């Protein structure tokens, strides 16, 4: 049972199993997107007050949800890498960052565009929007810090520390911004109210959330694979992987090598 667990830490194992999993994850993601978009755009009702703009919810909510989930994954992976010194954990953590930053930016953009026809304004400094904006800064800081180090190992560890400090800070920021907003009683308090949703809206929303999740896993796997290759360039399996297709098949090489050894 534990051998399976240790396998998780092996870059080679991950590279090989991701090659098999990728078509599936990608396919499922695509399918879920098609179903979710069809249901959301064509078959779900318009909102009583907002009209058709409510359809933006089907891409805005999954983006925001994923932006936060990915940050938690990024921080936890970094923690695992720090505590148990597992390289793969750091690779996953670092690969999460740009995807999470994209989700955050998309959440902010779609939210702003949604706000224009519904609230009359692109931006409001309410608790959720402000916290989400700061989350974007945390992602960007993480990526900037990691790329500033020359040594990958130090870069991984420093970024992991930053991610963890940020993780602790996220509820604090949200809480402080929420209190800050409610203090100014005069200001427009925009609390996004999610009433108990009817099924015709809930199903497309859940479908899209899962579509985004599988998308995240697909994109993450690609990024992790690219990163593994670069980091494991000294490993035999990587060298073998790249020399296949360039020269003769592996078997012939082995015979040639042993022939050379015997002749010496």
């Amino acid at each position, binding site marked *: 049972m534990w051998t399976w667990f240790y396998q998780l830490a092996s870059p080679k194992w991950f590279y090989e199993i991701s090659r098999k999993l990728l078509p599936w994850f990608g396919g499922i993601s695509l399918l879920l997107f098609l179903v979710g978009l069809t249901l959301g755009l064509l078959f779900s009702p318009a909102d009583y007050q907002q009209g058709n703009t409510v359809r933006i919810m089907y891409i805005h909510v999954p983006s925001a949800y994923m932006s936060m989930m990915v940050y938690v994954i990024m921080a936890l992976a970094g923690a695992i890498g*720090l505590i148990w010194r597992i390289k793969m954990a750091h690779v996953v953590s670092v690969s999460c960052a740009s995807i999470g930053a994209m989700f955050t930016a998309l959440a902010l953009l779609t939210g702003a565009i949604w706000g224009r026809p519904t609230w009359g304004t692109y931006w409001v400094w309410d608790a959720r929007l402000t916290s989400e904006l*700061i989350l974007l*800064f*945390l992602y*960007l*800081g993480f990526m*900037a*810090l990691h790329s*500033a*180090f020359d*040594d990958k*190992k*130090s870069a991984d*560890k*420093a970024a992991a*520390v*930053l991610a*963890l*400090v*940020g993780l602790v*800070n996220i509820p*604090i*920021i949200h*809480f*402080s*911004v929420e*209190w*800050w907003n409610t*203090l100014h009683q005069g200001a427009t308090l925009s609390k996004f109210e999610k009433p108990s949703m009817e099924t015709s809206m809930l199903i497309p929303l859940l479908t899209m959330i899962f579509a985004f999740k599988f998308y995240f896993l697909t994109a993450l796997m690609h990024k992790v694979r690219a990163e593994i290759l670069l980091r494991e360039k000294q490993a035999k399996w990587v060298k073998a992987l790249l020399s296949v297709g360039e020269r003769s098949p592996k078997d012939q090489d082995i015979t040639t090598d042993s022939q050379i050894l015997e002749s010496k």
Partner: protein
Amino acid sequence: MSVLLSLIKRELSVVMRSQSEFIYPLAFFVMVTTMFPLAVTPEPIQLAFIAPGVIWVAALLSLLLSLHAFYQADFDDGSLEQLLLSGVSGYSIVAAKAIANWVVTGLPLVLIAPVIGVLLNLSAEANWVAMLALLLGTPSLCFIGAIGMSLTLGLRNGGVLLTLLVLPLFIPVLIFGASTVEAASVGRPFVGQLAVLGAALILSGVFAPYAAAAAMRISID
């Protein structure tokens, strides 16, 4: 405890040698706050309105600028590494640096804040509250800043990156600090916000040195 005290004494004696470290952040604070009446409006009522925010942002930026003086030199000449190797805990080293940073930069800010408050037309009561809020908030900023500084010690363009990293972490203190003074200036209760500032100080004082010490070890390797 005595280790901590001797470390603090060391920090202060190093800094005292170049007295400009005292003056620059203070001068920066005064100049930045002075720019707002010139740039925004000299109208007393409106000045009083923006005063809490202006004082806090200026204090925050001044502290941000003062951070490197306490960490960079020791890192560059290797004495930081020597201290860690000699068995002194990273926690104490960071705590000493943060405390010294506050004594040299934060405390003067707190003391000169009432003068700035008068310049920005803050009421007398709000001025006192501003001092108190800064007294509680500036040490937190020093502790939190230590984390960002330790992460960027070995980097080439560390200074610019430091700002990007540390500002999101400063924001809760900024928000509660500014709202404390704002509440006092309109006569609303402010003790709650002060309590939060106090809590932030305790939390950052206790936990930030751990993160900063870990970051320091990473930077030194």
